[in-house]
């Protein structure tokens, strides 16, 4: 039984990582109707910026918040400069542009920082926490906590602020929003900025665990997509929960289903996603889109 709890806890820890990146993905999707394939690389790049600041002597929290600000501005700029020219074009055109962005960010990061992995500090103490026979790291707990704080902040922002309301309107019905005087273009840009910020947080929480290198987000992005799909792309809370569920399922299957073992862990996680999608296409917590005919 001990191992069960230990695996669940470990699963929650990795799931927290997936969930935080999934949150950024869902954020951009909600705000702009675009699935941003470059989200992982943007998060990775932000983390490298944080690393650069820390290397220059800036203390952790200073670098942390500094990176958030830079990432926000960066996200806004990316939307206005790179995405805007294709905003109204077919969805696949935008997808290709995002892929182009992904490839550029990855390549530039590798060129500037090289591909060797770098350790990245965690704001949480390194000593493990022991509860009975279950061991986990303070960082794991802390990272989940930070993700929940971000989630709460986003909830409050979208629900209770005018700007949040304007953004939601712009995403749901751009034409009518314009008539109300909402500057839809800038709402999209701010959406990207926010998502970049959320991504930066995710990156900085992830890097202490998986080490900083240009390809660090590749594997995680996969699981983040799975998490967002599971939870539903229309539900930020669902995305985070989806992440936790994916993390736990992955670990439990790897432990208990012997003939699959760890060699097909990824496949199993994906199979779960597919099954959920077939049964409930909009994800566990998502809302089915209702279209006017």
């Amino acid at each position, binding site marked *: 039984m001990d191992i069960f709890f230990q695996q669940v806890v470990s699963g929650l820890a990795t799931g927290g990582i997936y969930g935080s990146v999934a949150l950024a993905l869902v954020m951009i999707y909600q705000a702009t109707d675009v699935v941003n394939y470059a989200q992982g690389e943007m998060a990775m790049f932000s983390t490298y910026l944080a690393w650069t600041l820390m290397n220059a002597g800036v203390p952790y929290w200073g670098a942390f918040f500094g990176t958030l600000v830079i990432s926000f501005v960066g996200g806004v700029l990316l939307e206005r400069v790179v995405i805007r020219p294709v905003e109204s074009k077919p969805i696949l055109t935008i997808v290709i*542009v995002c892929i*182009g962005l992904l490839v550029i960010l990855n390549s530039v990061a590798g*060129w500037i920082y090289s591909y060797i992995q770098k350790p990245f500090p965690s704001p949480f103490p390194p000593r493990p926490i022991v509860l009975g026979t279950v061991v986990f790291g303070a960082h794991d707990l802390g990272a989940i906590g930070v993700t929940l704080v971000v989630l709460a902040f986003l909830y409050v922002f979208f629900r209770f602020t005018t700007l949040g309301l304007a953004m939601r309107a712009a995403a749901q019905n751009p034409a009518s929003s314009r008539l109300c005087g909402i500057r839809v273009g800038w709402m999209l840009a701010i959406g990207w900025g926010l998502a970049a910020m959320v991504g930066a947080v995710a990156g900085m929480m992830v890097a202490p665990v998986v080490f900083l290198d240009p390809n660090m987000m590749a594997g995680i992005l996969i699981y983040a997509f799975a998490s967002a799909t599971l939870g539903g792309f229309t539900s930020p809370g669902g995305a985070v929960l989806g992440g936790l569920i994916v993390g736990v399922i992955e670990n439990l299957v790897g432990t208990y289903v012997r003939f699959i073992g760890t060699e097909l862990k990824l496949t199993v996680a*994906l199979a779960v996603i*597919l099954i959920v999608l*077939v049964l409930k296409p909009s994800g566990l917590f998502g809302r089915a889109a209702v279209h006017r*005919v």
Partner: protein
Amino acid sequence: MTARAPVIVVAVALAAALALPLFVSNFRLFQFTQVAVYAIALLGLNILTGYNGQISLGHGAFYALGAYTTAIMIDQWSVPYPLTIVTAGILCLVVGFLFGIPALRLEGLYLALATFALALAIPQILKYFEHWTGGSQGIVLSKPNPPWGITLSPDQWLYYFTLAILVALFVLARNLLAGRTGRAIVAIRDNPIAAQAMGVNTALYKSLTFGVSAGYTGVAGALSAIVIAFVAPDAFNVFLSITFVTGIVIGGLASISGAIFGALFIQFVPNWAQDISKAAPWAIYGIFLIGFMYVMPFGIAGAIRRLAARAAHRGTAARA
């Protein structure tokens, strides 16, 4: 709908393709054979995504399935390679059709993600069934020699062989898409509810389209195994599927000629990018991608179509 390329353009292109081996080295021919293989794969994907509106980010899976079908059949049972290509095509058609059935329930984004998941799982699955697939070591094949004592180099023979299959499949696609089937497929893309109301069996057509699309890509995969003479799980990762999508968008959605333009792009532009910048070649490639989308948001074929339309319009206006 498909713009009919004037017959003379097609004839010239075909003549050029046939004459190519006389002018280029074996190595270049090898590269162009790869272009032909990609073109078949891209046409397959385009039928599904461009004409039928179902976004697939997992066609690398069918490419891999085709490639491994061929590799295993040749390696384990010494089946003659043309037979393996047919088998690969049929197998992928069936698998694609079966995959298309649950896919019916998935809306655009979620279908994209489901296919993305499929593409991701492929390398792991291939490594798991080590006994058949050779695991991460892969399977080594031999390049076939020209049959019947034809005096061509293996590279030249494979080029003509692939070209013949390409032409046949393209003609088949053209006929399929130009007739009632094609109209039904496109109608489903543009307005599924109206199509259904008009009596089109959307479920059947969508699944069939998935199957045909997978079949084409499977044939391409089978050819690639023969041309490269090697298969390994690492060659079929998710980036391959993404490259295919890139190819059809750059080439032009809902366009048969677009498959060729797209194939040329994905084969040669990464090499050019490397020649331009050793330090960050993929950054150059990314800039190419974004630049192309700015200048030609509907792909190369789309841009040509517009130019042609404008030229025709100007012609009639002048005459009027």
